[in-house]
Every structure is written in structure tokens, then in C-alpha cells.
């Protein structure tokens, strides 16, 4: 009798396991402009915006997470404004991708605790091995048979329980302090960046607050083929929600209008509001597919009138972008063989070549965009100086509404001076398993590269 009961219980358990379903994002019936995880209203932050610091943390598995940690540790050890605070205290926004998202989200949730326990909780763990171990658990075989439960859901459970302590976006809101953490993934349909903020979820008619942060980080780091995409439901529009005027004007201009880049930005968001029947779900993968650096979210918010950075331009004196770019260049042997590379090599290259090229362009792009703005203000000043010198009319040009200095610092292994060390770092694998020695070297090199940066040192002279 007992055997029958045990067998029945086991069968029931396995059937239930087979009905496993990923955690569905919650709907939001009424739109509220101030609700949820969104950047602070401009009125609340004008004074502290004078020194505006953005961190962009790239993808690259544990390698990127450790490099990001090293950069942040150095910022914490950098006093500014006569030692009243550190440069890390001044960080306003962290925009992150994939491996960098683990460090960013952990700091957003736990603050300086990052420096006491993140090494043990993430950096020095064999996360990859633990994920593989979970795949060998027979109970999970039945769960994985469900069409609505995938390998990535096992990863989300692991991150949620053992790294992020089941914290949700509501916990990030409750922290009530800067920095604002923007975790970026890639929308598989549009190929565009998807950022985990309430404005992004407003378009899906959804409430981000109840979402575990681990699910966002897993979406941001779901590397193609190794891990499956993460799915989210696109609900009917929240009552009272409408697309911003910025998006509407961008759409009105059409692709062949004066700003096709703005049109595509508007279009990729708008279809999840205007065409919900065709897009009842959105499937997200590694943020590196659309921007492996995390700077495009910053560029969008700087350029677009509805972005949180645009209305702050007039309050900023120093605009600082620090990029932790963990890009590698492993030794390549493809050219040594006459026969073409095999399927696995081609698949890997297909997933990474465009990502690497795009990363270089992304860093140049953010630098160019900010410097054009900086120069526009300088041109008026230069012109006024020429008028003052050569004309007696006393004519005064209208002044530029913004006037800030731009500093872009890229922490990149290519800047390591010691060639042996540089080659060692550039050859590190992209994985969630590194040795303690490798992690320690990455942390240390993050601080060293920041310290040796000319742009960073010039900045410190102005703000120390």
C-alpha cells in the first residue's frame, strides 16, 4: 500500500514538475506617471547633477563582472570635493549589460555590501558548474519538458536564491537612492535594446515592481544558444497610458524623414503599444546583441527630449562617462587551416564578431555625441570673444542653455602596458567560472587602468 502511495506521490510530483511555468510578469491596470522604478523627477536632483557620473558596465561573463567591481572599488577609494565624499557616491546611473549587470544590480540592491560579499556570492563561484549540475537533477528533467520552462529559468532560480536574495524591483525602489540601475537586454524581434525600467514596462502594460531582479539580470545575460531567451507578457494597455509626444513626433517623421534613427527608436517601442495583437509576448536575450557596452541607453536618454538626461543637461557642469569594457581578443588560429572553420566555430563567430565591432563603434558614438554638445556651447563663447575683440557694437550672442565639460574614460585591456599581462587578460574566456587568481587580477587591473587614464586624472584635478 505504501509503495502505491509513494509511487502515486512521485508520479503526481513529476506531472506537476512537467507543468512548470516561468514566472510571468504582472499586469498594471492603471497607468501612473510617477509609479515604479523610473529615474527621479528633475526637480529632485538639480543640485547633485552638477557632477553627473554614468557607469557603463559591459558584457563578458564573470570577467566583466570582476572588471566592473575593480572600477567601482577604485571610485570608492577616490575622494572628491575636499574629501566630503567619493566618486562612487556621485554615480548617478549605471547602465549594464550581461556580466556587468550582476555587479550593477548587486550594487543597486546592497550598496557597499558589494565590497564585502560579492566576491564570495558571485565572482569566485563556479556558477557555470552549478548551472550544469542543476541540469543533471532528474526533477528538473521533467520541469524542462514543459514548453513554458527552459534552461534560463533554472539559471534565474539559482541567481534569485543565491545571489540576489529574492529581491525585486520594489526593493530597488525602497532603497530610494542613487544610482539608478538600468539593466539592458535585447528584444529578439526588433533587435533593439530593452531596458528594465518602469517606462519600458509601461509600454507592455506591466508592473516591473514585482519582478525579481534576478530575472532581469538573467535576461541581460542570456547568451545565445547556451541559454534560452526570457519571455515576458505584453498586456492590454494600462488605463490612461499613451505614447510620449517624443515617440509620436518621431513616428510622424517617417523613416525617410530628417531623423531615421529617432524613427527607429520610436517604432521599436511603439509596436508593443499600438499592435499588441501581433506582439502578445516579448522575448529577450543577452543585452550584448544590441549593445555590449551599455552606452546606447545613455545616448538615447541624452538625445531624446523624453529622456531623463536631456532636461538635466542645463544643470550639469561635469558630465562623466566611465566605461568598463571587458572585451577580449583571444589568439585566433582559424587562418592556419586551408579548410573552412567548422559549424561550432562559425556559430560562435556569428554570435560575437558583430558584437565586438559594434562595441567599438558604441564607445566612439557616445564620445562623439557628448563632445558635439560640449563644442556647440564653446563655439558661441569663441564667437562672442571674437565679436568683443573686433567689434565695438557690444553685441551679445544668446548663450547656450547648457555648458558642461565632458569626460569619457574607457577601461579596456588594450591599455594594459605590460604586454604579457595584456595578452593574458585579452585571452580570458567568457564564462561564469574564473579562478580566484584571475578574479583578483581583473579587480586590480580595473583600478589600475582607471588610475593611469589621462582623462580621469584631468577630471580629478577639476573636482578634487
Amino acid at each position: 500500500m505504501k509503495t502505491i502511495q509513494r509511487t502515486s506521490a512521485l508520479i503526481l510530483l513529476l506531472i506537476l514538475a512537467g507543468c512548470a511555468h516561468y514566472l510571468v510578469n504582472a499586469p498594471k491596470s492603471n497607468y501612473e506617471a510617477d509609479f515604479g522604478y523610473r529615474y527621479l523627477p528633475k526637480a529632485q536632483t538639480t543640485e547633485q547633477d552638477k557632477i553627473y557620473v554614468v557607469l557603463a558596465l559591459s558584457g563578458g561573463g564573470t570577467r566583466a563582472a570582476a572588471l566592473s567591481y575593480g572600477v567601482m572599488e577604485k571610485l570608492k577609494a577616490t575622494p572628491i570635493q575636499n574629501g566630503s565624499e567619493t566618486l562612487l557616491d556621485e554615480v548617478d546611473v549605471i547602465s549594464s549589460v550581461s556580466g556587468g549587470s550582476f555587479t550593477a544590480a548587486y550594487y543597486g540592491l546592497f550598496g557597499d555590501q558589494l565590497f564585502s560579499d560579492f566576491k564570495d556570492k558571485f565572482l569566485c563561484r563556479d556558477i557555470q558548474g552549478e548551472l550544469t549540475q542543476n541540469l543533471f537533477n532528474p526533477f528538473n528533467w521533467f520541469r524542462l519538458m514543459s514548453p513554458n520552462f527552459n534552461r534560463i529559468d533554472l539559471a534565474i532560480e539559482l541567481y534569485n536564491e543565491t545571489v540576489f536574495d529574492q529581491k525585486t524591483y520594489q526593493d530597488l525602489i525602497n532603497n530610494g537612492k542613487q544610482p539608478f540601475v538600468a539593466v539592458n537586454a535585447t528584444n529578439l524581434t526588433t533587435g533593439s535594446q530593452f531596458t528594465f525600467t518602469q517606462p519600458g514596462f509601461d509600454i507592455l502594460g506591466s508592473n516591473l515592481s514585482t519582478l525579481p531582479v534576478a530575472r532581469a539580470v538573467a535576461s541581460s545575460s542570456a547568451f545565445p544558444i547556451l541559454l534560452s531567451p526570457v519571455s515576458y507578457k505584453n498586456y492590454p494597455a494600462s488605463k490612461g497610458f499613451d505614447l510620449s509626444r517624443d515617440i509620436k513626433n518621431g513616428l510622424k517623421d517617417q523613416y525617410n524623414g530628417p531623423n531615421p534613427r529617432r524613427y527607429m527608436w520610436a517604432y521599436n517601442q511603439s509596436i508593443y503599444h499600438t499592435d499588441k495583437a501581433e506582439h502578445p509576448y516579448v522575448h529577450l536575450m543577452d543585452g550584448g546583441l544590441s549593445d555590449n557596452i551599455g552606452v546606447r541607453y545613455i545616448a538615447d536618454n541624452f538625445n531624446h527630449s523624453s529622456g531623463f538626461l536631456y532636461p538635466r543637461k542645463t544643470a550639469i557642469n561635469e558630465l562623466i562617462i566611465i566605461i568598463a569594457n571587458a572585451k577580449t581578443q583571444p589568439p585566433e588560429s582559424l587562418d592556419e587551416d586551408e579548410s573552412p572553420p567548422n559549424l561550432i566555430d562559425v556559430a560562435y563567430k556569428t554570435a560575437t564578431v558583430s558584437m565586438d565591432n559594434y562595441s567599438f563603434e558604441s564607445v566612439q558614438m557616445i564620445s562623439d555625441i557628448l563632445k558635439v554638445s560640449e563644442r556647440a556651447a564653446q563655439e558661441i563663447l569663441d564667437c562672442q570673444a571674437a565679436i568683443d575683440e573686433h567689434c565695438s557694437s557690444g553685441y551679445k550672442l544668446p548663450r547656450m542653455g547648457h555648458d558642461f565639460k565632458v569626460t569619457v574614460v574607457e577601461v579596456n585591456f588594450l591599455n594594459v602596458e605590460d604586454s604579457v599581462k595584456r595578452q593574458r587578460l585579452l585571452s580570458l574566456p567568457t564564462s561564469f567560472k574564473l579562478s580566484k587568481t584571475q578574479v583578483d587580477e581583473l579587480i586590480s587591473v580595473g583600478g589600475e587602468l582607471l588610475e593611469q587614464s589621462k582623462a580621469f586624472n584631468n577630471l580629478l584635478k577639476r573636482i578634487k
Partner: protein
Amino acid sequence: MNEYILVEFDENREVIIDETASGYYTGDVIELGAGTHTISLEGPKNFSPLEQDINPSGTSSIKPLPIPFFKDTHT
């Protein structure tokens, strides 16, 4: 591509761009992305037109596009 405008009004007002407070004020040179933008002013609606759709092109910070607003005389 950036464009530049100069919003003109008798009073110092924050400029509303695409229904969002921009941080820029009347009399300032304002930097914008290319394309259509809807311009208005913060504060009492004692001006006309109440909003203007603009599409600046070929401007520079030295030669911004003037966008005049006029104070209503009956208010």
C-alpha cells in the same frame, strides 16, 4: 544630427519640448535632435500660439532657428 533653436518670449520661462520640461529657458540656445518637435512654454497659458510644431534644419549654435511666442494682450 543636432539642430539649434532660440525660443523668444517677453518673460523668462522654461521651454516645454514634446510635452516635457526641457531644463532650457527662453532666450537660451537650445539643442535638439533633428526632426519634428512640439514647443510650448511652462507657466500661465497667456501666450500664443499655445504650441508650435517645428522641424529645424541647417541650424547651428551660432545661428539658431528663432521660435517666437507672443504674450496675449487681453490677459
